[in-house]
């Protein structure tokens, strides 16, 4: 409605709008045991699994809500909270751990004021810790959206994040 409406609405569907979910339900209507792909596609469309979406999905695909919630909370891929504009995933695989991934996470939380699993209040960044992305020779690694940043040092995190802050108006220092 508002021209100044938030960016996120362009990227992801609003959980009140169930039309995208209908399409997803139709896609898997013939497939046996498709709960995980249903949830994966729903998350892709909505950015996270809102309670409204899970309820509608359970009803539409013939599951108990408890089954849907059970699967959604079992697998680490699924999120129950909306995410920020940029997703930062810090790898904490063994090679990255040995190479100092802890320091990378530390510096990110220093700079953004949020810890693993949290989103900055301005909805710019969500920080997650992930287990091994399989690019061990570049450790320590973080992935911002789909860009991999390897051989990181805490001191260059600020520079990397600056790129994603957007219009420049919000960059510190």
């Amino acid at each position, binding site marked *: 409605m508002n021209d100044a409406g938030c960016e996120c609405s362009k990227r992801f569907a609003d959980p009140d709008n169930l039309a995208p979910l209908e399409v997803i339900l139709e896609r898997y209507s013939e497939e046996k045991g498709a709960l995980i792909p249903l949830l994966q596609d729903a998350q892709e469309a909505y950015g996270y699994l809102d309670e409204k979406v899970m309820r509608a999905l359970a009803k539409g695909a013939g599951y108990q809500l408890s089954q849907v919630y059970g699967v959604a909370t079992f697998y680490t891929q699924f999120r129950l909270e909306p995410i920020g504009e940029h997703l930062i995933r810090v790898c904490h695989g063994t090679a990255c751990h040995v190479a100092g991934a802890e320091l990378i996470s530390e510096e990110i939380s220093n700079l953004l004021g949020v810890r693993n699993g949290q989103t900055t209040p301005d909805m710019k960044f969500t920080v997650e810790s992930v287990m091994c992305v399989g690019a061990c020779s*570049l450790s320590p690694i973080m992935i911002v959206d789909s860009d991999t940043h390897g051989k990181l040092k805490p001191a260059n995190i600020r520079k990397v994040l600056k790129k994603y802050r957007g219009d420049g108006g919000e960059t510190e220092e």
Partner: protein
Amino acid sequence: MSGNGKTKLVLGYGTCGIAAGAAAVKEALENELATGEHDAYLDIAGCMGVCFREPVVEVTGPDGLAIVYGDLTAKRVPQLLEAVAAGEVIEDWVVLRSDDSEAAEGDFLSNQHRIVLRNCGNINPESIEEYISTGGYEAARKALTSMSPEDTIDEVGKSGIRGRGGAGFPTGTKWGFARKARGDQKYLVCNADEGDPGAFMDRSVLEGDPHAVIEGMIIAGYAIGATQAYIYCRAEYPLALTRLDIALAACREWGYLGKGIFGTDWDFDIKIKKGAGAFVCGEETALIASIEGKRGMPRPRPPFPANEGLWGKPTNINNVETLAAIPWIIANGGDRYASVGTEKSKGTKVFCLAGKVRRSGLAEVPMGYTLRQVIFDVGGGVQAGKKFKAVQMGGPSGGCLPASLLDTLVDYDAITATGAIMGSGGMIVADSSTCMVDLARYFLSFTQEESCGKCVPCRIGTKRMLEILARICGGEGEQEDLESLDVLAADIKAGSLCALGGTAPNPVLTTMKYFRNEYEDHILAKKCTAGVCPALITLRIKEDICTGCGACAKICPVEAISGEKKEPHSIDADTCIRCKLCLSRCPEDAIYAE
């Protein structure tokens, strides 16, 4: 390799290459080549294994001489193409050359024996034609048109290959069980849920040679009598999933998948199932539950999946690496595969070298090599200036082995005897800057997080073990803690249903066995000699080295560092939270932990 007198450029375009900047190099190469001034063309390939020099490009001239250049950037592309046009070699960038196996990093490859990785880095994984040109799909044709399913199983049995996912069960025997199981419908599953942190063999094979896995699946499906197969692949591997999609579509077009494949009356098709992130789904029964759309929790066996698996039907599950070796075995014969390796461990094993090793990457070696050969001859030893301390094998289910065990053979039974496991192939090298207690704590925090919660010993036992380890790392450990760890470890091993719990204590047990002095240093002397555990270290600045640049003071989150400009700085130990940000920031390496 190169056709029509042109120079062929092959860019390593796997996840590791792209992460290192291969996309920018690709764009630069394409732009340069588009000018039409160069007598060369570009192709892509999966990971060559030399991850430590990515991005890499292989240049094959009209004379057939191939040179692999590494550490490329978009900026270096014009210089590279100029040299190629002039017939010159840029020595500093050379990684490998086909006319001199000892040049540059040559011994990284010459010490390997590539069966599973036979095509990785050599062919374009998105082109079925390139795979076919290497003899691809001939093994499947041979099995389907001239061998009975029983003959096929015999041949695989003769090869002696054991499951490469970690458990090491003989593949031929496993197929035999599924073949004999009664059922109107049988399933084959390729386990590509590579969850071990520090392991990326399966990802590299799927990205570099997806058709080898598919061909292996066709042969396996035919052997056991399955008409429907699944590849259960981690969602964290988007490129592998994309290349599998491309490969499956090409197979259907060529009549290698679908109805009546290879001109026989055999129907076979493969579907991809994306994992959603749960380490326990590497376990067979948990993986089956996950494909069925449930929480991925293991169940008691028997019944084994061979009799009652997916949807209650006979199901055979093999790992990516196992399946990728199958076409080679059928094409070259089980005996030839069995001629490589040790008495009870045949063939080759792919390892991911990572951590403090000089050449981190992907290496395939014959069984029977020593760990020393893998880490030092292939991997080039430990990174400059440090001493080898340990190698961690088998990820969270495995163990840490000290220098005194470096002559252990790469062999299922020899490695199991040390307390570690062969595992899926992750090999993380640790040096003097790695704290073994912290490493044990790290692995346990992983298994604790990934425990599905079904079995009490695993769910609660790992939590208690983790608490004790955190206490030890925090400087509050007591001598009795070591005994408690032993007791808990034994109970968890005995009381867990699946291998996740059954092996979870291994990293703790092996570090307590081989690095007991480090535990005692933490508990008795309250010292972390590696300088890792924050509660047990003090950060100091070497006054004679510090230039007073102030970089450390700037990054310190608690303002514990002070000093005049251009004068040596100092750290106030009471304010310092030992986050070590200053240590990594110092351009002079003047800050140290003790």
